[in-house]
């Protein structure tokens, strides 16, 4: 096995911008990040440091242009792939602000996404009844009422319900790499425990998880292997889980200097 393939995710010197020529803003200024299968990485950092942008660049959001660098997923450069192709390869982005999509049924959407994933793996579409069973068991594990199946995607969901719905989607799609963008924000302690439980269930030898968070709080429930601090579009410090505690105690100022 070569070095290139021993990492599940390799972000190499990524520079990314948003906007058109006159109005161009450089957000990421040379990010390097390597995540192995089985690892949980946490990315912390002050507001506007580029955490969400990094997650969107990896997931393939069309608004962000990569001007330099590459993103390798299992050794393959994925920057040329569309967001849906990246998803079908096993990359999942949990949104900080999940959008509401009135008129698109939540359960039906989940089944379509599940079947797209199966198709990509060369499997047949799931029988609707089999899928229903999978869905019910995953929803039960996340303490979600079955009426969420009847509703439109995120429509009228509270902040906490939306985050739970993100974790439900992650559980259904069972991705190799999950990037969770501030999944803990807006959750009360009980909901945080449920969501953390969902993340821990995904954890395993073939899986990698990148947690983007403002606070150490989530890391009490999901223990990270590596913690990075992102500031001004660069990773300024990498350490073990103690780094998160340090940040909690001292803030970011001492790192950002």
């Amino acid at each position, binding site marked *: 096995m070569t070095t290139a393939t021993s990492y599940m995710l390799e972000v190499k010197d990524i520079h990314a911008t948003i906007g058109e020529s006159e109005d161009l803003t450089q957000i990421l200024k040379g990010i390097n990040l390597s995540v192995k299968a089985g690892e949980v990485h946490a990315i912390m950092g002050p507001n506007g440091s580029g955490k969400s942008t990094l997650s969107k660049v990896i*997931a*393939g*959001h*069309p608004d962000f242009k990569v001007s330099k660098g590459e993103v390798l997923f299992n050794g393959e450069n994925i920057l040329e792939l*569309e*967001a*849906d192709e990246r*998803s*079908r390869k096993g990359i*999942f*982005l949990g*949104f900080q602000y*999940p*959008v509401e*999509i*009135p*008129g*698109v049924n939540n359960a039906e*959407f989940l089944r*379509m*996404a599940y079947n*797209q*994933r199966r198709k*990509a793996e060369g499997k047949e579409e799931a029988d609707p009844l089999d899928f229903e069973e999978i869905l019910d068991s995953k929803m039960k594990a996340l303490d979600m009422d079955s009426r969420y199946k009847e509703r*439109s*995607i995120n429509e009228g969901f509270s902040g906490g319900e939306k985050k739970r719905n993100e974790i439900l*989607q992650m559980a259904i*799609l069972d991705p190799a790499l999950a990037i969770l963008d501030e999944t803990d924000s807006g959750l009360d302690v009980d909901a945080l425990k449920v969501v953390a439980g969902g993340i821990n269930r995904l954890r395993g030898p073939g899986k990698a998880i990148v947690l983007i968070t403002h606070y150490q709080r989530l890391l009490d429930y999901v223990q990270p292997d590596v913690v990075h601090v992102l500031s001004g579009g660069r990773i300024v410090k990498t350490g073990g889980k103690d780094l998160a505690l340090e940040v909690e105690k001292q803030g970011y100022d001492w790192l950002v200097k």
Partner: protein
Amino acid sequence: MSDTQAIETKAAVPRFMRTVPAPLLTPALEEAIPKWIADGPVALEGVREAAASALRLTGLPHSGSEDFSFVRTGEFLPHLGPPAAAALARLAGGLPSRSDIERQLVTEARESYLVLVDGVFVPELSKPGPDFQVARLDTVLPALSRETRDAFIEMVAGETDAAAAMAVLFAAEPVHIRVAANAAPASPLLILHFSSGSSHRTDAALFYQGDTLSESRILVRHAVMARAQEHPPEAGSKATGSMQNAHTLALLGEGASLKFMEAGPLQAQSFDSEADAAGPQAAVTAKAIHFGKLTVRLLRDSRLLAVSAHTGSRLTRNSFSVDLSGEGAEAEVNGATVLTGSRQSHNFVRIRHLVPRCVSRQQFKSVAADQSRSSVDGTIYVAPAAQQTNAYQLINNLMLSDEARADSKPRLMIHADDVKCSHGATAGKLDPAQQFYLESRGLPPSQARALMTVAFIAEVLEKSGKTGEGFRDGLDHALLDSLKNRLPAESANRPKGGLNG
């Protein structure tokens, strides 16, 4: 979609009534009308005279006609002459086959349907079921109560749409459908309008009478017979293609309820077969002009729910005229169109609140792709006496192409001072944030866009409730089917919100 905004207007704004354009008919029409009435059944004279007087008063549409504000009159005017000789030969275009009928049936109305061919009722192919009394109007009109007859004639005489007046005047065999007092047929009645593809205009007129506390559902489909062909236009005629001109008039008695769901011209001929879409019948549909009108008078505490959906044709125009004439009446009128290619669809709505304490709601949604054109021109009129009116109107347009065009004209004419009325219109593109969300879960861009488009339209179809679930699902498929390969994979642009009103 994300950029939905509505303008709220709660104040009473007195406005002037519209003026009637100068009456003008062609000499050929002037000459044909008295002869047509004299040669027809005596029983129909009153109705036809009323239609003729409405037509003379309204005149033929011209470029300044308010009723056709977004429609180029040149496209259909050649069709508005006296009925062609060929149109007068009863069922000259043949009859639909058993399989033609079979594939238009929907589960909930397999035992309850009417067949009309080129506007002519064909009893031997129909099966209205026990609770719908169906007959040619001329055979039952003399036996109807004076009140009912007068009400129908008044509705006809008040017609301001020349094409709708002509449908009643020239329909060879107007049909009368009645649901008796307190009756509530278990199945909906499916009305199948077949076209033989003939090159002349076909006129159809249906008179629905829902007696006191009756409760019924009517589903309408338009179809082309399998052996239909495109006919060359008659010698001397400037009209090209065919024109189907249908007018349904409904009189709802006290406490009566009517749920009316119409599938206008659809690209897919059948609700469940995709192969039909490109067939010869689809070509006939695409080239046809479809004019449809629903005129309803609601008496005390009666209810109307109307949902109309279609994928347009060379020129499709649907018109709704609803009079809330009895206190406590409620009317809901909804429309959904999905247009591709150079198809056109125009909706024209007039809701008149004539008495206090009535409710009306309207929602029209259009999806316009390619170079298609759609318009909605809707007015809520509140008479001085109609205090405590509650009326609402919303027009939403989803633009899938920069070359498509949608015109919206939501309008209030309020002459009472204690009312709650609101109206609004929006135009926008698919929301890129929603699209990215769906794609990030592995849905290909085309599937994501289709899903969002269907969701946009679904809101209107869902208003039909339990009117006809099989019918609604079929319509849903037919609408989506027309968008196949029309939802380009590129990312949606940032939405541009638009307000109109």
